[in-house]
């Protein structure tokens, strides 16, 4: 088995949560490919296993069975420290609640992935400034997250996810806390700034207002991918 050049190659992924005597099957043998240069949306009802699946893909949760290759690297066989280093270099995260550190300015928040990789503060801030300008927040460099609107905070989070030029961006409900217009702006930023030939995006969402931004949509139910359908991007 191999990844065949895919960004993500999943075969037979299972994950079970044990709580006391009961076992909950979160993933029941998921097969999925995510291609380079593709924006894939993972949709489905609450509790169907979407978040568990992106946690496994992102290497922040260990799965039980199956093959999980991200850029050809088998995450299951990696040590925790290698997995941590792999995430730092190759992954960017966008969260539903932004997860910006409240006491840091926007530029400092954006610079974190570069600092984790050991870059000097000065050059990290310089690169972060460029990134914030790219998402339209060049005038908010020194604002604290609390002074920004929800849409602006999510754009800061996108800048943070992209600043170190990762090859895979994982987004968890990036628009669910935003109104329709703001959600559309955020998706446009994601689509235009984040998507590139050498990068893939996986977006977990409930928000059917943004489905048209996807290249493909994978529908999940009860821990399985039940349908993968192409979607024509309209913007």
């Amino acid at each position, binding site marked *: 088995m191999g990844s065949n050049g895919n960004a993500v190659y999943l075969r037979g992924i299972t994950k079970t949560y044990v709580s006391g005597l009961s076992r909950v099957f979160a993933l029941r043998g998921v097969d999925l490919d995510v291609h380079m240069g593709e924006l894939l949306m993972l949709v489905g009802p609450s509790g169907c296993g979407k978040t568990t699946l992106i*946690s496994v893909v992102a290497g922040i949760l260990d799965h039980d069975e199956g093959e999980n290759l991200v850029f050809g690297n088998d995450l299951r066989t990696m040590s925790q420290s290698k997995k941590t280093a792999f995430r730092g*270099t190759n992954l960017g995260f966008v969260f539903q609640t932004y997860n910006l550190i409240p006491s*840091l300015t926007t530029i400092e928040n954006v610079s974190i992935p570069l600092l984790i990789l050991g870059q000097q503060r000065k050059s990290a801030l310089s690169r972060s400034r460029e990134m914030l300008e790219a998402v339209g927040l060049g005038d908010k460099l020194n604002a604290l997250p609390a002074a920004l609107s929800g849409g602006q905070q999510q754009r800061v989070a996108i800048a943070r996810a992209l600043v170190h030029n990762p090859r895979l961006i994982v987004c968890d409900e990036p628009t669910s806390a935003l109104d329709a217009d703001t959600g559309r702006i955020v998706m446009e930023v994601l689509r235009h700034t984040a998507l590139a030939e050498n990068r893939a995006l996986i977006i977990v969402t409930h928000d059917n207002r943004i489905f048209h931004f996807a290249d493909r949509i994978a529908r999940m139910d009860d821990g399985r991918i039940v349908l993968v359908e192409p979607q024509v991007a309209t913007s």
Partner: protein
Amino acid sequence: MYRIALKMLMGDRGKYVGLIMGLTFAALLITQQSAIFTGLMTRTYSFINDLSQPDIWVMDPKVQFIDDIKPLQDTELFRVRGVTGVEWAVPLYKGLLKARLEDGNFQIVNVLGLDDATLIGGPPQMIQGHLSDLRRQDAVIVNDVGAATRLARRPKGEGGKPIPLQVGDVLEINDRRAVVVGISKVSRTFQSQPVIYTTYTRATNFAPRERKLLSFVLVKAADGVNPTELVQRIKQSTGLAAYTAQEFKDLSYNFYMKSTGIPINFGIAVMLGFLIGTAIAGQTFYNFTLENLRYFGTLKAMGTTNGVLLRMILLQALVVGVLGFGLGVGSASLFGYLMKETELAFRLVAEILFFAGGAIFLIVILSALISIRKVMKLEPAIVFKT
């Protein structure tokens, strides 16, 4: 990343101030109580410090500390003088006697009778008059604190200030006239009574009739004679107890350490400061970590190693520890400065700073460990939970 750790810490003003206050309180309590304890224990031998001239103190073998007077016969003085290697040996009377003040009130005073000829053992500093004035009739020298407080004349009207005892004033000690000829400054001792210096003969006249009145024999070793060897010779020749000044200080200090409740009382206060500090700092720091768990999880998901997170938390703990320690010790020093003219025993020495620093370091490390454990065990997948 360490700058980020500090900004995370200082960004939450409430918790940041709470943490520092908790540690400040702990450092204050530990330093202040330790300094008072040290001050008190120093007073157990400050009288010996004030008498710098003798190398050796000779006394009854049953004496346990400086204020434990078990008098000797006057003839013992001559036996000590006869020991080879003694340059000089002089008598010292020390006893608590009753003084009658001008207004008829009585006050217990600590009377010291110095060798009539040499006046060895006099106060370390004279404020008014001269030590040699003790040779005048009925002369006594009073310490300044005693003169200004317990021996002071009571004000006539309500709210008036006491009038300190002055040179020329007269009081009665055991119905015998005593004229103040000088005011001295002496170190505060464990006993808080006024200190009155006079000659040995006059002191024994003040004292109630007893067969034995000699409290101590003060000895100077001849040039080239080792005081420790002389101590042994005096013991062997006289059968009395003899100590170098340092040994006698240690004897007095150890008596108070072993036979009084002082160490345990202060120990409890210091322990309480430590426990309260640990509880406040530990809980606040843990709450701070819990509230920032999402961000630690985010950092972990983005590739921060456990080692870096551990160092970030330790840095946060050390910063609040250093600030709390500085403020606590500063407050304790200010307290000591403000109290320096009072009866309070307060002695802040370098050892206390090291001790308090060690205790605060232990508190912050214990507090940090609880938080570190939580962060180390944190699953980065927490970041996807809302």
